[in-house]
């Protein structure tokens, strides 16, 4: 049985641990709220872009060839953008995303397609290097509140890759923020762009300057950028909520452990006192008999 001093020391260290995990939980909670706000802030832009794109693609089905809308019948090259956190301690979040990435790669390869990986986030980058995947581009240390310009390099890489025929499809894999407790690994196709279905009554006869083609040509890459940006922001919100929940569990476990230790501390202390009392009593009895 450990001594009371040893138990006291363990209680103290568990208490310190609980304090740290509790602090991390609160930090993640506030970062999560801000990240969620950032996700919502991209909606007006994305929605308006989608509206404008709907007007354009609805009336100009013939001009899809050679643009980011072109659906290719024979898919050979695929790019997968994997969005993960830079840091761990986020429960099973990273594992879930990476497992999905491995499955995606395998399935595509079985169809005879070549898969190239683009990693956003250190966890995913390290995994791809470790498992010898075809990692062609990476972006790490984005921080908690990235700007759109931070992901432009990646967006440009996949857009150019698509236009030059290196990629026939581009997908992004990230953990979708469903709610605080649920984050779901999700794959979304970035390219070719899925044109929105525009209701006919919203059609307006615009004048396009300089021309319809040029407006579309400028518009489509922006749509890819904002979709990727949204995926990254959502992944960040997921990361913080997963970490918050993981840290809450850690705090709860530490509290349980502290309770158990306190109980055994008291038991040991009581046992020691009883032992000493009985030693004194038996010593006194021995003296009285003499």
């Amino acid at each position, binding site marked *: 049985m450990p001594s009371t001093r040893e138990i006291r020391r363990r209680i103290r260290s568990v208490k310190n641990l609980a304090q740290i995990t509790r602090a991390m939980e609160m930090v993640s909670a506030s970062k999560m709220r801000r990240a969620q706000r950032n996700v919502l*802030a*991209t909606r007006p*832009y994305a929605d*308006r872009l989608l509206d404008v794109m709907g007007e354009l693609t609805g009336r100009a089905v013939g001009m899809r060839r050679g643009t980011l809308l072109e659906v290719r019948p024979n898919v050979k090259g695929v790019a997968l953008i994997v969005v993960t956190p830079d840091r761990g301690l986020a429960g099973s979040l990273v594992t879930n995303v990476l497992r999905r990435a491995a499955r995606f790669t395998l399935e595509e390869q079985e169809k005879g397609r070549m898969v190239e990986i683009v990693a956003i986030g250190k966890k995913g980058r390290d995994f791809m290097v470790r498992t010898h995947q075809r990692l062609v581009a990476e972006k790490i240390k984005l921080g908690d509140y990235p700007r759109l310009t931070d992901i432009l390099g990646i967006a440009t890489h996949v857009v150019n890759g698509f236009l030059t025929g290196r990629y026939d499809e581009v997908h992004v894999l990230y953990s979708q923020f469903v709610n605080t407790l649920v984050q779901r690994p999700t794959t979304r196709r970035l390219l070719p762009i899925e044109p929105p279905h525009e209701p006919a009554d919203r059609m307006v006869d615009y004048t396009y*300057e*300089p021309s319809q083609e*040029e*407006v579309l040509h400028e518009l489509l890459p*922006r749509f890819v950028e904002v979709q990727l940006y949204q995926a990254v922001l959502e992944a960040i919100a997921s990361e913080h909520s997963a970490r918050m929940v993981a840290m809450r569990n850690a705090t709860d476990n530490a509290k349980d452990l502290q309770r158990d230790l306190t109980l055994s501390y008291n038991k040991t202390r009581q046992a020691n006192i009883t032992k000493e009392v009985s030693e004194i009593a038996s010593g006194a009895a021995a003296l009285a008999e003499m």
Partner: protein
Amino acid sequence: MPIHLEIVTAERVVLSDDVDMINAPTKDGRVGILPRHAPLLTILEVGELDIIKDGVTMPFAISGGFMEVLPTRVTILADTAERADEIDEARAEEARRAAEQRIAERKSAQDLALAEAELRRALIQLKVAQLKKVRRDK
């Protein structure tokens, strides 16, 4: 009859207000938008965007994007948009110097084009920031 103007970027809604006139830098030159303009969809360039409301001009520095014009509603989808008083002059100045340096180095054609684009942006930011100052001095 005012126009309802919204300036949005991928990161935030920069402005949502009723205004009297918009003067925007498009790819084919500057255009002025008054209420009841014909529907128009145009590409915006790096430049100064002026919003006129109650006789007061409010300048913005924008770095490209789109403008959708409807008779009573205008939406500007900007790559970046900053109101004059939001511009960090020191940072814009820094960006200008860095861009000029890169142009002087002439590493590659692509780098040169990027640096020139950055220089244009920085110059517009500085110009718009100056505009605000002049008006305040009056």
